[in-house]
């Protein structure tokens, strides 16, 4: 069963080709890594999937639905969650509110019920609060629920971002450099966390990462990008021994 199919996706900024002829097939439950040098088009790829940019060529099918041309919030409502390379929390809001906001599309009351606080409002709000607190508990953030997001230390902000992404109950989770700026000990912790949420929420995960330890440690398949082109796809062992990948990372190997 495939959850995401990208078919010949391409995107240009002005004349610059950021992603070209990108093909991807993700099955339910996959954990795939996307690696590549800086500027290879990895984050652009995430932006294309989540609808921040509209792909200029090709199609992306999520659960059989064409998502190219949909707005980011519509795509998120189809249950694709993501985090950001440079943390983008709602900095001045509380930790709890950060998570509550991401429940927007799954809250079923309409604006009249919201204005009058009647009908489904009370039940739904209670459900959101309960679910948010449950998510914070998973990430060991419960005691900080009323703290302002920007006051959290860096590592906790990263975790809160994942918690927030999980609040939209995603089936596909996109993690953009989740281990950036973490020390080896924190990376180990993060690897365990990713594995456990993957199991608990039955997630399909696509992650961008530079930390080889994490990528090689948990990803089942790896997709290598360079200058918007796909260099190689395969298991970690295959990628590690691929001469084209080594060349892209280390420069040409003198023969």
């Amino acid at each position, binding site marked *: 069963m495939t959850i995401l199919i990208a078919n010949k996706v391409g995107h240009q*900024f002005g004349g610059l080709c950021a992603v070209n002829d990108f093909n991807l097939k993700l099955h339910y439950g996959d954990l795939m890594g996307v690696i590549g040098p800086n500027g290879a088009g990895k*984050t652009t790829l995430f*932006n294309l999937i989540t609808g*921040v940019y509209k792909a200029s060529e090709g199609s992306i099918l999520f659960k059989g639905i064409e998502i190219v041309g949909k707005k980011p919030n519509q795509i998120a409502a189809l249950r694709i969650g993501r985090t*950001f390379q440079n943390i983008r929390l709602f900095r001045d809001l509380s930790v709890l509110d950060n998570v509550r906001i991401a429940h927007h599309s799954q809250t079923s009351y309409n604006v009249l019920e919201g204005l009058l606080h009647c009908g489904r409002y009370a039940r739904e709000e209670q459900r959101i609060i309960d679910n948010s607190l449950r998510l914070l508990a998973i990430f060991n953030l419960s005691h900080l629920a009323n703290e302002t997001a920007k006051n959290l230390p860096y590592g906790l902000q990263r975790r809160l971002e994942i918690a927030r992404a999980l609040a939209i109950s995603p089936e596909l989770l996109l993690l953009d450099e989740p281990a950036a700026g973490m020390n080896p000990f924190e990376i180990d912790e993060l690897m365990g966390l990713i594995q456990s949420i993957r199991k608990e929420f039955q997630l399909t995960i696509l992650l961008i990462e530079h930390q080889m330890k994490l990528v090689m440690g948990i990803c089942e398949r790896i997709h290598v990008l360079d200058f918007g082109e796909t260099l190689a796809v395969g298991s970690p062992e295959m990628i590690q021994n691929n001469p084209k990948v080594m060349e892209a990372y280390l420069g040409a190997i003198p023969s």
Partner: protein
Amino acid sequence: MSEGIIYWLQQALNALQLGSIYALIALGYTMVYGILTMINFAHGDVFMIGAFFCFLLSSTLNLTFVPTLLLTMIGTAILGVLIERLAYKPLRQAPRVSAIITALGVGMFLENFTLALAPYPKHIPMLLENVTWNFYGITLSSIQLVIISLSLGLMLLLDYIVQRTTIGMAMRAISWDKTFVPLMGIPVDFIISITFAIGAGLAGAAGTMYALAYPVIDPYMGIMVGWKAFICAVVGGIGNIRGAMAGAFILGTVEIMVVAFFPSTFRDFVAFTLLMVLIMVRPYGILGKPRIQKV
């Protein structure tokens, strides 16, 4: 020449005159925005103060045109720097909205303070002998000639300063990046003050010329003219100096055309509708460049 062509040339001349005054004020808006990304809503009132300086100098000291113009420009330049130092500088790190509101407050303060001191509209004495020349039916007055040539001269001078001098280079650098420019040894505060001084000085010149052309002045005259000049800056692409000049001449032309065809009360309506449509279609103005949002 036919009647029609003469009529249109005459209107074009009027548009040029109006556009020149707008341009001088619009430059102040656009320079401050370029360097601080802040809308200096008090700028229109600096223009008004310029007209009142001109009134004071010419009626009480009986100065002639050239010293009046120079002293007015110096006076408004000092006022501009004072406003920046006292009201805007402390807010440079504050949320942007605080600066906008402070600017609105400064504008209201200037208006009402002037009103408290000068409750009735003032008549400016004749500073220049008004000679009119007639070319094939097109009338050109000496005042028009002075306004147009002087403002074009000032604009060329400004363009030279910004594009060719060290100070201009520093201004462009600050508008590009405020965090690292000080590390390059550029005195940011000084350059910002210079920017305000130049902008306010140009507004002072505009005030003097406006007083020449329309010699009755009152404390609220700066509001509408200020907003219009601001439209010019936005139409041209705010932060872009050549854009502001282009925008000013476009708005001047549009306004003169509207008055030529419709009752004059429609002028503001058309000007602001133009602004609204333009922002929706091309938010970055005619000469501005769109900014790509990074995720």
